[in-house]
């Protein structure tokens, strides 16, 4: 039997089937081979996610481990307005705003505005709703937990059990995803204004990453800026897959690198001493009303900066509130003619070169010395003074004559050897090197002017380091502000050692200079108000007229006292600088009492052995054993 029609039909169906399978095979090859790369990327974009973990910024601590700067984990609370204001289901803005306003400490009306849907233009030029609106930054974790709990408790005017099944995912998303939080760090300075100019402050920058925004913290001033690299740490990341509910499929986690926290910077500052210095400086500010006041406490043997204070200061927790002038670290950025404290340089040079000895006598011309056609004055008229007395009385004429004997080449070399005209290398931003003119620019008068601290511009830090070099037997040390870097576990990663820059004068010269400087702090000297009850102090006063540029000198003064104690075995060198104190402006009357206040408290705080104990305080002591012990201690 032959069925030609059926056979034809069968063949036709077979052909169609084969054709269909051929089409499917082609499609399969097309998807798996020709479009493989594109489709693979699309599939990965749907499932593979990369997360970045920001490292914790390292702490800054003082030498005793006290916290100076730290980072606290906080949240940036954000909202997706498209979930809250859904045209198909309902508008829940008012309810959400009412619930969140008291918890976030925001106005309800302000919050309502933020919950409105805003539109953005995407890369394709289309208008898309903004699904990432920041409600508040720096929210404490505890507060964020309250926000989350409150959103979970909201009913949104419905009972979820009675809600139609198709709407349940919406309400679940509304509770879980409409209000969310991003991790952030808050930099905190628990001591407020204390040591603000050393620590500095940070700024935050927002950076797009991982379809969201990452808030990066970076140093803007002080140690926060210079050691930003060490403090920042290294970011971690995780490459993983997510399912349709945005849950991580841990088994498909490809890369997982933990962030490495920033290193802890252990500074050489001592917060106890810093507190003493700042308190005394504030008292000085109130008493003498200078425009600004600065103080530095240096350990002469190592060059460690134990305290550094500048007033007026600012709170690094909120630096933008303060005048930029207040944020300037005047100790390293302000240049002034130093005045009489600079006489130490000329006299040290002359003693070291054996041009003079402490008992060499100079005629101080009764206060008026004509040289190179100009008159040089002393504050008080003096007749003959020894080199030591030139320092004691701070005679300008005496210092000028000593410098003339030394000669300008040698004098200038001592100036540069003491570090003037160069940066000290303190790890703080903005340090200036000062001005020491080349010899070619000196005129005949210059040597007499430079000897008394004019025609040179120096920073307060350079002056403090110069005096520390004298106290340290003539060795100039590099100022140290960082003692070590530690990792999170407290292991030392880098330990910084004191560095001697050079020996400026012999120990014998330094000893002679110290003997001269001791006389300044006596009843015959210019700094009798710097005399200490329990220690011998040595130092030099300075009262410089402030330069007014080409117009000569203004009526303002820059007063200073730089001293150290115990004089023969210096533990601490303290430099005080007052910018235009009034009505009294002499360094010996204004800066010297501040030095005394700091030194007496610091000696006690640092447990420096008293060299002598005032008899009246012993007699007043209620403890007989204390009186006896004091005798033992001072034997």
């Amino acid at each position, binding site marked *: 039997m032959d069925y030609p029609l059926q056979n034809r039909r069968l063949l036709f169906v077979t052909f169609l089937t084969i054709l269909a399978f051929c089409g499917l095979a082609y499609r399969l090859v097309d998807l798996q081979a020709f479009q493989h790369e594109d489709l693979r990327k699309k599939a990965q974009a749907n499932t593979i996610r990369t997360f970045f973990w920001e490292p914790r910024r390292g702490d800054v601590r003082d030498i005793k481990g*006290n*916290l100076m700067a730290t980072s606290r984990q906080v949240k940036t609370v954000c909202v997706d307005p498209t979930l809250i204001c859904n045209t198909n289901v309902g508008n829940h803005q008012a309810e959400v705003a009412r619930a969140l306003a008291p918890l976030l400490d925001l106005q309800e009306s302000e919050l309502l505005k933020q919950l409105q849907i805003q539109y953005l233009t995407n890369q394709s030029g289309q208008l898309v709703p903004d699904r990432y609106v920041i409600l508040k930054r720096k929210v404490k974790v505890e507060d964020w937990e309250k926000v989350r709990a409150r959103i979970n408790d909201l009913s949104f005017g419905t009972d979820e059990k009675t809600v139609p099944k198709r709407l349940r995912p919406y309400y679940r998303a509304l509770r879980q995803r409409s209000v969310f939080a991003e991790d952030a760090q808050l930099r905190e300075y628990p001591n407020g204004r204390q040591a603000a100019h050393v620590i500095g402050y940070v700024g935050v920058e927002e950076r797009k990453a991982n379809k969201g925004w990452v808030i990066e913290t970076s140093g803007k001033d002080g140690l926060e800026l210079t050691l930003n690299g060490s403090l920042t740490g290294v970011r971690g990341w995780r490459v993983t897959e997510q399912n349709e509910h945005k849950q991580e499929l841990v088994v498909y986690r490809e890369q997982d690198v933990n962030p490495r926290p920033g290193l802890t910077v252990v500074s050489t500052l001592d917060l106890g001493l810093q507190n003493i210095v700042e308190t005394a400086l504030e008292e000085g500010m109130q008493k003498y009303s200078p425009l600004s006041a600065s103080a530095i406490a240096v*350990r002469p043997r190592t060059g*460690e900066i134990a305290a550094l204070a500048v007033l007026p200061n600012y709170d690094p927790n909120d630096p933008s509130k303060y005048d930029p002038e207040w944020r300037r670290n005047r100790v390293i950025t302000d240049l002034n003619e130093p005045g009489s404290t600079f006489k130490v340089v000329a006299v040290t040079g002359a003693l070291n070169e054996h041009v003079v000895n402490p008992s060499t006598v100079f005629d101080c011309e009764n206060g008026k010395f004509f040289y190179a056609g100009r008159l040089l004055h002393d504050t008080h008229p003096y007749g003959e003074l020894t080199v030591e007395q030139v320092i004691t009385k701070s005679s300008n004429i005496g210092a000028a004559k000593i410098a003339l004997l030394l000669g300008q080449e040698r004098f200038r070399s001592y100036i540069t050897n003491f570090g003037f005209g160069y940066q000290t290398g303190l790890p703080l931003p903005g340090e200036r090197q000062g001005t020491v003119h080349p010899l070619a620019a000196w005129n005949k008068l210059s040597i007499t002017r430079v000897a008394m601290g004019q025609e040179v511009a120096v920073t307060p830090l350079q002056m403090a380091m110069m005096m520390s070099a004298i106290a340290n037997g003539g060795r100039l040390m590099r100022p140290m502000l960082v003692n070590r870097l530690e990792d999170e576990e407290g292991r030392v990663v880098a330990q910084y050692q004191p560095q001697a820059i050079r020996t400026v004068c012999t120990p014998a010269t330094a000893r002679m200079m110290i003997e001269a400087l001791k006389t300044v702090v006596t009843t015959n000297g210019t700094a009798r108000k710097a005399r200490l009850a329990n220690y011998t102090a040595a130092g030099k006063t300075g009262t410089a007229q402030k330069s007014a540029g080409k117009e000569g000198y203004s009526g303002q003064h820059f007063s200073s006292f730089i001293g150290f104690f115990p004089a023969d075995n210096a*533990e601490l060198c303290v430099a005080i600088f007052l910018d235009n104190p009034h009505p009294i402006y002499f360094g010996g009357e204004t800066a010297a009492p501040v030095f005394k206040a700091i030194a007496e408290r610091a000696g*006690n705080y640092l*447990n420096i052995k008293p060299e002598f104990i005032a008899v009246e305080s*012993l007699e007043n002591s209620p403890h007989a054993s204390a009186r006896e012990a004091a005798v033992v201690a001072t034997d």
Partner: protein
Amino acid sequence: MPWLLLLLLGSVAGVGYVGEKYTVYTLGQDKKRYENLLDDACHKTARLRVELDTMQVPRTLESRIKELNLGLVQPQPEQILRLVEPTAGGTAGRSGTEPFVNQGAGAQPPRPQAPASYALAPAMRSSLPR
């Protein structure tokens, strides 16, 4: 019969495979949960450590002393009794009457060695109760 056995074996293998996959998935979820717990604990520890450190800074302590009106002040030099510190090598080394002088950053007073004898200066010895 062999085909039935094969089918059964295949089914068991399939179920086993799916079961294993599910176990891996649930273990992953557990791992994630514990990681979150650990993260929370670490954050809490860090937060508490910062709070403790903040409470210990001299400024906070000073303000607390003022608040509580404890009347604590720095001792005056005449109020300090300086004990003789014994050294490991007898009289060698530090002089007993010499007080600790801070030698720079991080320097701590030397700890007294094993107490062979705490020698006191004669004047101080006489002040001790008998």
